[in-house]
């Protein structure tokens, strides 16, 4: 009687064991799949993180009109007059002073 019970138990546990093993294998493959997907996803993020940040020049550069205004300011008559008045021609006689001293010592 006891033997019969044991045999029945064994025959019942075999398919359970089989399905459990199958489940484990399937779980293993699912985990591997998740892991590989995770790796791929994080790789893309890592690469993106090191990409140079592209700043469009149009948003950074100021509009051209103020630059042009600054450039044109040098042709105002007040500025020109100021620069023209800065010209100094040295006195020629002063420049000849050393030569004259030498000549006088002859």
């Amino acid at each position, binding site marked *: 009687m006891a033997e019969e019970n044991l045999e029945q138990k064994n025959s019942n546990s075999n398919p359970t064991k089989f399905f459990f093993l199958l489940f484990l294998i399937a779980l293993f493959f699912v985990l591997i799949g998740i892991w590989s997907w995770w790796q791929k996803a994080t790789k893309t993020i890592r690469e993106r993180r090191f990409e140079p940040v592209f700043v469009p020049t149009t948003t950074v550069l100021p509009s051209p009109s103020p630059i042009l205004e600054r450039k044109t300011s040098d042709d105002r008559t007040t500025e020109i007059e100021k620069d023209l008045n800065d010209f100094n021609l040295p006195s020629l006689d002063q420049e000849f002073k050393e030569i004259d001293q030498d000549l006088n010592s*002859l």
Partner: protein
Amino acid sequence: MKKRVVIFSIVSLILTTSCFALPTSSPFGVKGMLERVRQRSAVFQREFEQNRGEIKKIIEQNQVELRNQIKNKREELKSKIEQLRERLKNQLREKIKNEVKEKIVDRVYQRINELNERMTNHYLNVLEKLEKILERIESRTAKAKLNNLDVSKVEEAINEATVAIAKAKEAVKNQAEKIYQPPEITNDKTLKTDIGNLRKQLHDDLKSVESLVKQAREAVRKALVFLAQINKVDEFEVPEITPTPQPTP
């Protein structure tokens, strides 16, 4: 039919684009801003500034070219001046026989050549600055002209100043490339007069170059005075849409 329309559109586009481009520098020299806007009724501010930049660049290139010409010529002359100096030393040794006087005369001759180089460099600097100032005057005059103001007097003065600067530059170039021949040394008594004559020759030459530089400066000043006499001239900029300038009677 479609093909004809396409060809017509392309040709019109090319012609329109070429109309908006200001004439560039002529191969014979710097074409000033006034000359560039003369044949135009409308000029865009960006175009105006681009042309100014181009004119400035040409002016600077010409200045560098002239400086290099003078520098190369001076390098050539250096050995010749050294030869003349040696000849002078030999004559002094033979005919004067006074070491102190020999040294003084040699020093004077050296100083004459150095002074010529220094002064011509200085005059060239002044003329280069005057050229840049005249370009600024011309730019302001062109803006006034584009705003229909009468700038005929300023234009005339600008032309005179351009000629005066060119004349002075030519004189400076000739002066910079000049060699001063030392006098023939005969005896101790005439030594001072002989060297004195050389000094006088340099003085007179530099004085005449200086006079031309001063004339150029005054010509530029005259153009500026005429420009400043135009009422509120500094307030005018290149107009967005410029009406056709009316010919002055």
